[in-house]
């Protein structure tokens, strides 16, 4: 689950990390009030969406009068913002954050982030004095400028290594203010089951204080059960409607640009089915994993999801029934086809437990379903329908 900037900053405040003064709203006239109450000469009006690259896409406006704040807010609210991270559909702006503007003193912008290092199987804290740009870009251009500290025995923090890091020549001047931020962000990451916690940029003010100008926090969906307080922060308007709908039924769906709808059990088999379609010259319209043991209801819902995508021109079902029995799947398919009144070509490949029973159900249904034995044949057939 992703958090908005304003939500991330609320968490930072809870952990004692300085953020610019400001307030979030969905109302332009309220934006003017906020600006006025801040009693500042310059401020920023920032679109709240689940994607980076807002600045370049016009999602952050600098204002110097309450009326300007109101105008900026009115322009942003209700708009769909397209950045290099949103994809072509963009993300709707439903809230804006009005903040005091903090120019970085002497251009000092720092980067601080924590993510999971899969190879080391633990969180890793990354720090760089070259903040402002995206960490991926920095990692490509100047990996030596990122220092890393592994948090390898949580809940303990690697204090010795943090101290060591702060002894470095270029960090010594900020050590006093930086140390509590490093430890606080680490605690925030661990205590809230984050998958990413990033402050970028972290700027140094005139009086030597450090302020988090922007923040990005993602939470581990699997741990939300123990963070009931944060679940309410989920913003469905920022998620793909089909993906959100799928998650309600325990299905894993990802929309793609092609026209062949895929319904498969298991993530690995689903990905390789997509690969196979491509290999035969077709384009998959989606990734859809119904899981290892889907029910008739889930299969029906999965079909509805496929058909909700108007680009879909043919459907491929690939099931390797292990735990899931093929006759159950066949029931699900025929029920769904009857319910939704399918008019598109449908190719079904069943293999595994009770495969003969399953094939019989499909045959006897009298429905226009092409039944094949191997995944290769299935992919070839379904691509043939498109061409």
């Amino acid at each position: 689950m992703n958090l908005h900037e304003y939500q991330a900053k609320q968490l930072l405040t809870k952990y004692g990390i300085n953020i610019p003064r400001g307030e979030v709203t969905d109302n332009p006239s309220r934006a003017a009030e906020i600006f006025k109450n801040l009693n500042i000469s310059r401020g920023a009006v920032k679109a709240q969406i689940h994607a980076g690259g807002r600045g370049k896409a016009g999602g952050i406006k600098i204002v110097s009068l309450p009326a300007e704040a109101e105008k900026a807010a009115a322009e942003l609210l209700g708009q769909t913002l397209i950045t290099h991270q949103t994809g072509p559909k963009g993300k709707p702006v439903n809230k804006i954050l009005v903040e005091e503007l903090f120019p970085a003193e002497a251009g000092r912008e720092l980067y601080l982030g924590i993510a999971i290092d899969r190879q080391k199987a633990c969180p890793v804290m990354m720090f760089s004095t070259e903040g402002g740009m995206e960490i991926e870009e920095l990692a490509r251009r100047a990996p030596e400028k990122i220092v890393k500290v592994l948090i390898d025995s949580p809940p303990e923090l690697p204090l010795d290594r943090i101290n060591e890091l702060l002894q470095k020549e270029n960090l010594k001047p900020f050590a006093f203010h930086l140390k509590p931020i490093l430890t606080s962000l680490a605690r925030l990451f661990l205590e809230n089951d984050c998958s990413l916690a990033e402050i970028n940029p972290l700027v140094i003010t005139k009086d030597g204080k450090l302020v988090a100008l922007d923040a990005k926090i993602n939470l581990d969906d699997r741990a939300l059960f123990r963070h009931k307080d944060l679940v309410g922060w989920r913003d469905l308007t920022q998620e793909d409607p089909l993906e959100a709908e799928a998650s309600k039924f325990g299905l894993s769906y990802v929309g793609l640009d092609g026209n062949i709808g895929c319904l498969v059990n298991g993530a690995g088999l689903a990905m390789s089915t997509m690969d196979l379609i491509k290999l035969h010259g077709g384009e998959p319209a989606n990734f859809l994993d119904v899981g290892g043991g889907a029910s008739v209801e889930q299969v029906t819902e999965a079909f509805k999801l496929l058909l909700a995508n108007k680009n879909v021109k043919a459907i491929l079902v690939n099931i390797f029934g292990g735990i899931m029995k093929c006759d159950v799947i066949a029931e699900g398919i025929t029920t769904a086809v009857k319910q939704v009144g399918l008019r598109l070509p449908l190719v079904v490949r069943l293999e595994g437990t009770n495969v003969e029973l399953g094939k019989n159900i499909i045959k006897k249904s009298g429905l226009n379903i092409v039944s094949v034995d191997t995944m290769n044949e299935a992919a070839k057939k379904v691509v043939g329908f498109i061409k």
Partner: protein
Amino acid sequence: MNKNTRVVVQGITGSAGSFHARQMLEYGTEIVAGVTPRKGGQLFFAGGDPVSGRDKPVPIFNTVAEAVRETGANTSVVFVPAAFAIDALREAAESGLNLVVCITEGIPTLDMVKIYKFYKGKGVRLIGPNCPGLTTPGEAKVGIMPGYIHKKGTVGVVSRSGTLTYEAVWQITNQGLGQSTCVGIGGDAIVGMSFSEILELFQSDPETEVIVLIGEIGGTMEEEAAEYIKEHVTKPVIAFIAGQTAPEGKRMGHAGAIISGGAGTAQEKVDKLGSCGITMVANPAEIGQTVAQVMRNYR
């Protein structure tokens, strides 16, 4: 893993645990105990075919330590729900088992960080989580792989996925070939045993002649495996990587299957494995026949 593997099922009274305990018993796995807190002293009835003698009731214990002491169990298979899995896995590692196989999916990543470190410290082998387990055809199956797709033979299979593993195994079986052992290491970002650790076991296993590795996008475990194979594996290796068509930044079902910042793409993995002398399969429908070809050449 063989006929002497003595298995304790953690979470045997749950719906998945009881269903698969029955399936494992039916396959011939020696299930000696079940564990469910507060249900110790009860019996688990497989209810299988009485003629086969597999309806022998399995004793249930409150703790893994008790089960090990009373039954000599040496391997655990864990079906405990994700929220409680961290405690179940800790308990298993402290009870003197050699191997723990965790089927449970959806365990929080930071729980796995702790568990990974704990297991490394204790020197206990962990397979999974979010995995189908492992099967040694004709001997035992610990996990949820469908038994009938296997055939005893000399192909070692290691994979990050579930049903794609079944697909590969089935293709191999349909070529008239069989498997020495099939291992699903799990699709999560953090899993216990890696490809390289399983490859080491296959390399030293006299029953294994060739090895099939099935990877997918995300992470760098395939690249590490490629390096390992180049240095240490003399047996032929055939590999397939799923997710050639997956877009960047999207999670493809498995928590581990996500491409971030250009790292972990299928192409990178294919190139790396290919450059280390591994036979790459481009078409997932041709895993079986490629294995057959390689075996013909090898012999």
